[in-house]
Structures are given as structure tokens and as C-alpha cells.
């Protein structure tokens, strides 16, 4: 039994809101940046929520910190790095390209290439010559013709 109090447990007792009007920045350009950064950061006590959409208190505090740092002149990158330094890769919704995520990022293109290679092989081996109808094909033809009738 975990006795530790996670904020997550309090979620339902809190207002259901993420970004509140009073925490928003007056400058729309800065506010837009704050939203962008907030959407790249994971709420650390929630399951798969960005701090932008989370209503956990710590997420609210992180949103405020993002805005404070933007106002203080930090770049988006600097803010993300700051959060990365305290919470680790867990806090970034877009995984960094590192040794640990090599397979994650290279997997899909690699799979596609392998697939293309397999498709090419399949076409080559099967397209060698205009082979006459096989017995199976004749069977299939019979099925199709019977069906048409």
C-alpha cells in the first residue's frame, strides 16, 4: 500500500481547468509560445497529459513557471532544458534522439525500407517470366467463372 500522497489523487477535488485566464500572458505572441512549450511538457503526476491540459496543481505551477521564464526572456529551448534537468527525459513528450531512443526513431524508417526490400524481392521472384496459369490459378479462374454464371 502506497501511503505517499500524489497530487494525482486530488485531481477530482480540483477545478477541472487547465489554463486559467488569470495565468495567461497579456502579449498574445508570448502566450502562444507558452502554450507551445506547455504542450511539449508532460504533467509529472498524471498519465499521458501535457501540463497544458492537466489540472493537477504541480502542472499549474509548471505552467506558471513556463510563463515566468518566457517573460524573463528564456527561449523555448532553454525552458525545456530546464525541465529536462530536473525531471529527466520523462518530462519531454517528444523523446530526444539519444542512444536510448535510437530504435524508437530509426525503427519506422528502417521497417519501411525492409518492407520495400521484401516487396521488391517478392515482385522479382514472382515476375520472372510470364509463367502459364498454375493449377491454383486455373482453380481460381473456375471459381470466378462459376460465380459469374
Amino acid at each position: 500500500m502506497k501511503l505517499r500522497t500524489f497530487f494525482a489523487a486530488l485531481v477530482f477535488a480540483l477545478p477541472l481547468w487547465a489554463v486559467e485566464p488569470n495565468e495567461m500572458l497579456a502579449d498574445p505572441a508570448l502566450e502562444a509560445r507558452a502554450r507551445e512549450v506547455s504542450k511539449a511538457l508532460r504533467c509529472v503526476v498524471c498519465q499521458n497529459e501535457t501540463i497544458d491540459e492537466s489540472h493537477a496543481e504541480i502542472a499549474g505551477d509548471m505552467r506558471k513557471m513556463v510563463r515566468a521564464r518566457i517573460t524573463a526572456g528564456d527561449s523555448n529551448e532553454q525552458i525545456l532544458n530546464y525541465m529536462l534537468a530536473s525531471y529527466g527525459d520523462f518530462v519531454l513528450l517528444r523523446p530526444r534522439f539519444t542512444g536510448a531512443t535510437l530504435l524508437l526513431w530509426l525503427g519506422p524508417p528502417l521497417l519501411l525500407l525492409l518492407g520495400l526490400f521484401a516487396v521488391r524481392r517478392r515482385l522479382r521472384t514472382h515476375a520472372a517470366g510470364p509463367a502459364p496459369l498454375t493449377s491454383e490459378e486455373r482453380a481460381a479462374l473456375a471459381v470466378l467463372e462459376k460465380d459469374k454464371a
Partner: protein
Amino acid sequence: MAKRWPYLVPLAVIAILFAIFGKRLVDVEQGFNPAMIPSVLNGKPMPEFDLPGLPGRTNDRGFKTADLKGQVSLVNVWGSWCVGCLQEHPNLVKLTQGSGIPVHGIAWRDKPEASLAWLRKQGDPYTLVGQDPDSRTAIALGITGAPETFLVDPYGRIVFKWANQITPEVWQKEFLPRIAQLRK
């Protein structure tokens, strides 16, 4: 006949996946908590902070990073709203008493009056107390909940973080050996 090995690929992939699932299940069974975020600050210097003290406390001068230099110390993050902290507190008072290790407290997301009243009622084991009402320091420290406790070496570096309650067993197993190591 076509080569056979390509037909073994799906089996091989799923076997690896099952092995990972199996290990994960065993880990979870053995008490691994998937919700826990491992600290990335171990071995790193304590992030800079300079927190105001609790007005009305005997020592109300606050708590800052520089205070950690010179000896082994503990930093306990707590809040008067936190049930886990209430359960941990007697252990914290008892275990650290006479250990010669100062315990500093960070009152997280709390009103100073509430923190002070809580300490008066539950006992105050802390040498220095700083308040962090808007999580600025908590975020720098990678806090996700309370209580959390940092063990800090005489150079002000974080040795490790215990992200749960300190119980006598935890103190014996996780803290004392590390403290002994640091004092060597």
C-alpha cells in the same frame, strides 16, 4: 521451397516482447512502482534556491543552497496538507534525533501559518525551514509528490533522493549505509 527463416521472424519478435512483459510483471510484483520517476539529480549539485523562512518560527532566517555546504545533511520536502508527511513525521523526528545530521525542511505549496501550526503540533525536527509556495524550488528539484527526502553531501551535492516516506526500515537500508559511506 522458399527460405524458412523469414517465417520465424514474427515468432522471434513476439518472444522478445513477451520476455520484456514477463520481466516487467516480475518487477511490478516485486514492488517496482511504475508511477515513480527516478531522480536525475543524483550526484549533481543541489540546484540554487534561496527560500524565505517561516515567520514566527524560532529560527526564521530561511533556507538556501549555500547552507548545505560543510556537512552531510537531509532535505525533507513536506506540506501540512500531505497525509503521507503526517505519517512520516514521527519517524523523521525519532530517527534523525541524535544522528548528528541536520534535517532541513522545505514547506511545499503551503501557507506559512499552516506550516508553522503543523510543526508546533507534530514536532519540529528541522534545523532550517524554507517555504516554497509556488513550487519554484520543487520543480527545480524534480519533486512530484510529498514527502521526498534528499541526502546531501558536504559539498552540497545530492547523493540520492528517497521519493517516499522514511520508515525505520528505509532509514536502516537506504540512508544509514550511505551516510556511513559519506563520513568515511
